[in-house]
């Protein structure tokens, strides 16, 4: 019976959560109390560690889980300052006149969606509201599907729905193309060579938006959402360096450090990196979405990680002192 004890707890917890009133948002006072309690619990863990009671890894997981989950129910608004690299990205988009053709390269898949999907939705909403013509493609198989999800979501906004945007005229999805950076290379001379049909099997020549779009010289801006290879690095190396296109990017946090050098060498026109970049991008475009909700959870979890780095170091010193005493 003891073997199944935790499973009973889990099932009971799920039932309680299902029965709770919805949506569950606590007041700012309760939010502050919860935050203080979380902080106090961490202090208790630190004190216990200093007294030689080492905590297990599951306690760390529990704290991380709580720090990520609790903010969803809190009524806090985090102040977000737009960084220069995101501002540059937004400025480049803001300079585009109505009717400009923007190539949106969706080079990511569902695992990276928490960081990149909010950027995709903010970008799409901004582009549609400002009458930019969006040409979608993907070097990752699931990228164009992520694009379709973003479009479906932003088309629900009354302001965008009222515009009666038409597929093939205001936006088009060319789908996925295998070949990694060689696809970008070939697109430098011929888009239709790489994408003879769109995602719905319509011939390239029969899509009104693509009339006159032969290669990168007919594109005003490239917005790349990237989670790795092939992605922003390849877009900069080939599309920017070889064909002189302006490329702005939204990256996962894990990839952002490798892309920053391109920003300082002015090869990349702006960068929104990770969840913080996504939240800043939403702020800059005034398309507030999921990233602004997520950033509070992420900030909480970062505080917990920092606290555990301190606790871990305290544990190291305690064990070091103990072994020294034993040695003496």
């Amino acid at each position, binding site marked *: 019976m003891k073997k199944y004890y*935790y499973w009973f707890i*889990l099932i009971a917890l799920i039932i309680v*959560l*299902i029965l*709770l009133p*919805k*949506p*569950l*948002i606590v007041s700012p006072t309760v939010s502050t109390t919860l935050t203080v309690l979380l902080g106090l619990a961490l202090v208790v863990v630190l004190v216990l560690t200093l007294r030689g009671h080492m905590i297990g890894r*599951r306690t760390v*997981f529990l704290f*991380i*889980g709580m720090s*990520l*989950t609790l903010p*969803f*129910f809190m009524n806090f608004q985090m102040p977000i300052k737009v960084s220069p690299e995101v501002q540059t990205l937004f400025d480049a988009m803001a300079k585009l006149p109505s009717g400009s053709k923007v190539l949106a390269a969706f080079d990511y898949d569902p*695992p*990276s*969606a*928490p*960081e990149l999907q909010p950027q995709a939705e903010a970008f799409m909403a901004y582009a549609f509201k400002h009458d930019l013509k969006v040409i979608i493609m993907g070097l990752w*198989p699931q990228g164009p599907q992520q694009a379709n999800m973003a479009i479906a979501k932003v088309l629900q906004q009354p302001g965008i729905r009222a515009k009666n945007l038409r597929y093939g005229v205001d936006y088009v999805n060319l789908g*996925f*193309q*295998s070949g990694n*950076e*060689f696809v970008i*290379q070939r697109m430098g001379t011929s888009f239709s060579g790489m994408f003879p049909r769109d995602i719905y099997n319509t011939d390239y020549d029969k899509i009104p938006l693509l009339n006159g779009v032969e290669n990168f010289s007919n594109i005003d801006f490239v917005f790349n959402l990237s989670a790795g290879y092939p992605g922003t690095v390849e877009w*900069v*190396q*080939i599309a*920017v*360096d*070889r064909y002189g296109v302006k490329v702005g990017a939204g990256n*996962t*946090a*894990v990839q*952002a*450090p490798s892309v920053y*050098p*391109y920003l*300082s*060498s*002015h*090869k990349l026109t702006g960068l929104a*990196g*990770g*969840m*913080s970049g996504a939240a800043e991008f939403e702020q800059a475009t005034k398309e507030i979405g*999921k990233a602004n*909700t*997520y950033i509070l*959870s*992420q900030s909480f*979890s*970062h505080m917990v*990680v920092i606290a555990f780095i301190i606790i871990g170091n305290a544990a190291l010193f305690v064990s070091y002192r103990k072994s020294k005493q034993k040695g003496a």
Partner: protein
Amino acid sequence: MDSALIGTWLAALLTLGIMSFIYKDNLYYKVCEAIFIGISAGYWFITYFWDSLYRKAWVGIVHQGDYILLGGVILGAMMLTRLFGKIGWIARWPLAFIVGATAGLKMMVYFTTNAMAQVHGTVNDMMAAFSGGDLYDLIGRLVILIGTVTGLIYFYFSKEHKGVFGGVAKVGTWFLMITFGASFGYTVMSRMSLLLGRIDFLLTDWLKLVK
């Protein structure tokens, strides 16, 4: 019952199954892991089958008469000879083609974008900061310059890291450690985002506790 609802419940139960590994390895986790790996492998196979073999090769050659694609098909078939012991050496030819083509493309782009452009950017911005930039910008550019030079010196192994040279290399080590620390920080941020996505799914789409 609504198919979307079944899908949401299935996804939620699979998510919980994967998360159960946090407690300890168990059968529920193993089943979810096997389903994930199986579906991923199947998805990739089907994607590449329809995209590369059907849409590109079959449609291209049979329906559009683009016979140059036959070269790719033959090279692809040669790759499979690796599975047959004695003629496995044939697979080296397409591999050599891939390595050659990739190296040819990458060599130039890396040299221009990752080497020349970076040197140009570092020096040029440094000069611009000296001639008219603010103090904050100048300090930032100086840090980049010192970091670049000392980092390169650290990787210069033809001279022993002793004396002034060793000291400079040590500074380079510090810059590298700070860089790795920043990368680690970003990686933590990314991994938290992955978990955040799943928690959001559980709370919003499944339990509907938040909007």
